[in-house]
């Protein structure tokens, strides 16, 4: 294609008032609503938003895989609507599941995409060695793609989309579910690409903390464009509006609850032992203002704004937020605030689980006290789910002891299960049943009958504000409501222990806050909560946590303890992710050291 006939290009990718709807079973979902964006050349643009924001739809429109209902799309000055094949021939695209052939080796996958992009045989050797150097996959050329770890698959997927040396790279959620170390490596590769080859990258992600790694950010929510700017520009608007509040004589959860009700407060989240507050005005609030009374030893310190703060501010400002999400009630029952007592509700000692000669979980020990929120943090494949299944009595342990609510799981798994509420990672209720039917079915599965069952169903509908949806089909509920229903179901039999498996993955920040307010209220009433997550930031909500990798526990303690362990001059204010990456590196050094 002769380059000289092209007009000067302003944007690598340009969408003008693009609308796209999907119709399924009589329902119409507007995935994108009059979205206009322009992606600039030679930089990394992040397409950021929670599940259902329209990120994948935008990517597929840009590749010509979908056609818009309205609007125009121009990719490298080619009209994607009328000439999809020309677009598909020049862009590099990595779909959500990487597009790898798992029964082909690394080299065979590269060969396939080289053939498809007609890369001359003579150029391949140098080309591959370049890509392998970048991705660190050189030692695995002969390995089947299906046998690679999640992080390596992601890098191979990226390499495959790069073989045609495309000027524009479209990456759809490349970092989802991958451990933080691989995530950082991937970001390093992407930035090197942009520098060395002056490539243009559009990358979608649901992780808000990745916004700061982009040169520019497009913020989407429920199909609508919230804004497009440099990440710093988003946070700049919030300058002087973020604070850490610490009150030594108050439980952090009670403190957070009170602050979030205060006027002039946009957002209040727990961060370690403190509460992070975002205010409407750039004025340092007084204790009087935020807790409605004198609190002499309360410390209020300004902190730097995060991208998530601005996202929440934008959402609360521009989106019609249902009133319930604005102020999710702490549970109406007047519960005495209770601090974790000394009693251990969950005891795990030297727990191991073998599959053949592979240890999915190895020598894991921890205890959880009553009313404590305890986290299991780790990437996919770290052993969290296996540990969880053993705690639920769904999978027998190979070695070690497991006691839940004073009951040994080896001898009386069913009795322990009656005391435990479980909320699975994916929406695991019956999508074809209505909300009320789901509640009745699951309560009867826990042997609630007659008047008592009716009472509990009424309670759930009222407590979770599901009353108006009692007859709605569960499948059609918005994600946040599905999650509420799942939590209600887990609480039907009034358990004193609650297991949550990746409870907020894919939920937008407001939904996540609402969910955690409910969880905090439960913890305040003495219910013990065990939660798994791969969201590093979610660890802040936990009283204590363990970090797992490759089936082992790397560290145990409060999130603050972990962060301070890795405080240095280079990193005066390490995040949970920094701590995690440092822990993994330390563990690997240790392995190398002991092997030598």
């Amino acid at each position, binding site marked *: 294609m002769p380059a000289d006939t092209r007009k000067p290009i302003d944007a690598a990718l340009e969408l003008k008032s693009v609308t796209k709807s999907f119709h399924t079973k009589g329902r119409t979902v507007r995935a994108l609503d009059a979205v206009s964006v322009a992606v600039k050349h030679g930089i990394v643009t992040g397409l950021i938003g929670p599940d259902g924001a329209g990120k994948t739809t935008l990517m597929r429109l840009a590749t010509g895989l979908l056609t818009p209902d309205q609007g125009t799309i121009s990719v490298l000055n080619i009209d994607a609507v009328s000439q999809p094949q020309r677009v598909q021939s020049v862009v590099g*695209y990595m*779909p959500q599941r990487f597009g790898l052939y798992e029964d082909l080796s690394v080299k065979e996958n590269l060969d396939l995409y080289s053939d498809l992009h007609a890369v001359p045989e003579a150029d391949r050797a140098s080309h591959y060695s370049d890509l392998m150097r970048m991705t660190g996959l050189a030692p695995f050329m002969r390995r089947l793609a299906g046998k690679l770890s999640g992080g390596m698959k992601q890098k191979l997927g990226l390499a495959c989309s790069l073989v045609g040396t495309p000027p524009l790279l479209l990456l759809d959620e490349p970092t989802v579910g991958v451990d933080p170390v691989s995530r950082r490596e991937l970001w390093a590769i992407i930035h090197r690409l942009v520098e060395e080859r002056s490539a243009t990258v559009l990358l979608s992600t649901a992780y808000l903390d990745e916004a700061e790694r982009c040169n520019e950010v497009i913020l989407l929510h429920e199909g609508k464009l919230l804004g497009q700017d440099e990440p710093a520009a988003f946070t700049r608007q919030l300058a002087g509006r973020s604070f850490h509040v610490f009150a030594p004589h108050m439980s952090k959860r009670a403190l957070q609850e009170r602050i979030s009700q205060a006027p002039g407060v946009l957002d209040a989240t727990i961060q370690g032992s403190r509460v992070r507050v975002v205010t409407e005005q750039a004025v340092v609030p007084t204790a009087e203002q935020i807790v409605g009374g004198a609190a002499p030893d309360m410390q209020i310190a300004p902190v730097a704004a995060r991208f998530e703060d601005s996202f929440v501010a934008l959402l609360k400002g521009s989106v019609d937020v249902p009133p319930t999400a604005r102020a999710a009630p702490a549970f109406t029952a007047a519960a005495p605030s209770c601090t974790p007592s000394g009693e251990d509700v969950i005891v795990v000692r030297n727990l191991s689980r073998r599959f053949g000669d592979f240890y999915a979980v190895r020598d894991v020990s921890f205890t959880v006290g009553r009313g404590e929120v305890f986290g299991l943090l780790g990437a996919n494949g770290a052993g969290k789910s296996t540990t969880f299944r053993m705690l639920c009595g769904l999978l027998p342990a190979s070695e070690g002891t497991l006691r839940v609510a004073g009951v040994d799981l080896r001898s009386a798994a069913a009795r322990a299960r009656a005391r435990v509420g479980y909320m699975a990672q994916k929406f695991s209720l019956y999508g074809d049943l209505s909300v009320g039917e789901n509640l009745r079915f699951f309560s009867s599965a826990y042997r609630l009958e007659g008047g008592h069952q009716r009472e509990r169903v009424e309670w759930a509908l009222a407590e979770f504000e599901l009353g108006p949806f009692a007859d709605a089909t569960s499948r059609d509920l918005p994600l946040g409501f599905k999650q509420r229903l799942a939590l209600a179901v887990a609480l039907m039999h009034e358990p004193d222990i609650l297991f949550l498996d990746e409870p907020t993955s894919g939920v937008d920040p407001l939904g996540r806050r609402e969910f955690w307010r409910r969880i905090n209220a439960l913890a305040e009433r003495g219910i013990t909560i065990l939660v798994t997550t791969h969201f590093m930031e979610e660890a802040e909500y936990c009283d204590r946590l363990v970090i797992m990798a490759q089936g082992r526990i790397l560290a145990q303690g409060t999130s603050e303890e972990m962060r301070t362990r890795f405080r240095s001059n280079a990193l005066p204010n390490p995040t949970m992710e920094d701590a995690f990456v440092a822990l993994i590196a330390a563990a690997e050094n240790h392995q190398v050291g002991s092997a030598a």
Partner: protein
Amino acid sequence: MNAELIMRLRGLIRKEALQILRDPSSIAIAFVMPVILLLIFGYGVSLDARRVPLALVCENPNRDTASFTAGFFQSPYFVPVRFGTVQEAEEAMRARMVDGIVWLRSDFSRRMLNGGNAAIGLLVNGVDANNARIIEGYLQQVWAVWLAKFDAAQGLPLRIPVQVDARVWFNPSVTSTDFLVPGLIAVIMTLTGALLTAMVVAREWERGTMEAVLVTPASIHEIILSKLIPYFVLGMGGMGLSVAMAVWLFGVPLRGSLWLLLASSSVFLLCALGMGLLISVVSKNQFVAGQIAIIVTFLPAFILSGFVFDIRSMPAAIELITHIVAARYFVTILQTLFLAGNVWRLIVPNILALVIMAGIFLGLARRASHKSLE
């Protein structure tokens, strides 16, 4: 441009070949399944009545009855069991221990010599109508042969004025294997052509690899061709294996020309591949694709192709439906080529029908495929 096209096509085909070699399930469907089906139908299932348990009731045993019943003991078709009374024999038939009763009354010899009418009684279990007819036929033959010998020995005139000289064409020994195996090959080809293709294309949609391949310079024609060519080769391989087994293992004669067999198989395979592609494009899900492929291609090939059940004896409405079952035409071609030879009058219209159907299915599959997700 042309060199690039060949490079892309080569890359896609090589990928497909590697996947076939590494995935035991596609090899199993293409090569192990035909062997198993052929062994079951070749050795296990037979439409011939053989070793039928038969009750012999001889109320007054003598030289004549002994010479008659001896015929049964020598026949490969019967396993005779002697019973003292008819009541006992009937009891055995109710218990399904025997499928027929031959009853020689006490006045057997007298009736024979008097030239009277048939002195034997025959009771056949009619639950399996097909079997019952076959037993009846065999028995009549045994009776006729014995009667002729008896009359000759006694110096009596022949009681049967016209001897039936039956000759069975195309399958002189009337073995059902010769008839079943060619039809079975059509079923096997449907399996590799439609089921395997439907599953592997749906798998690409399910795993998200199709989405990645769509966003490359490869055109939709190249993507379709890259699926057709490898599975065409695989299907012809399965075909070759089946023909070899038919001829050398089961001794089915191949009277037609090999070239005609190759040509008609190619056309049929294209037809099956077209159906498979169409199914996968519509369903995009391995489970659904497998279900649809079995219901709309494999089962009709089994039931409505004339492979086991004669089409002419079907009700008119069902017979009409068989016309859209591609396997029907191929079964006719195969049975003709194997058992009769190059009967052009039969083969040409059937091949034409297959050409038309292949065109329709491949055309529909092409029209249904787009380089888009909608």
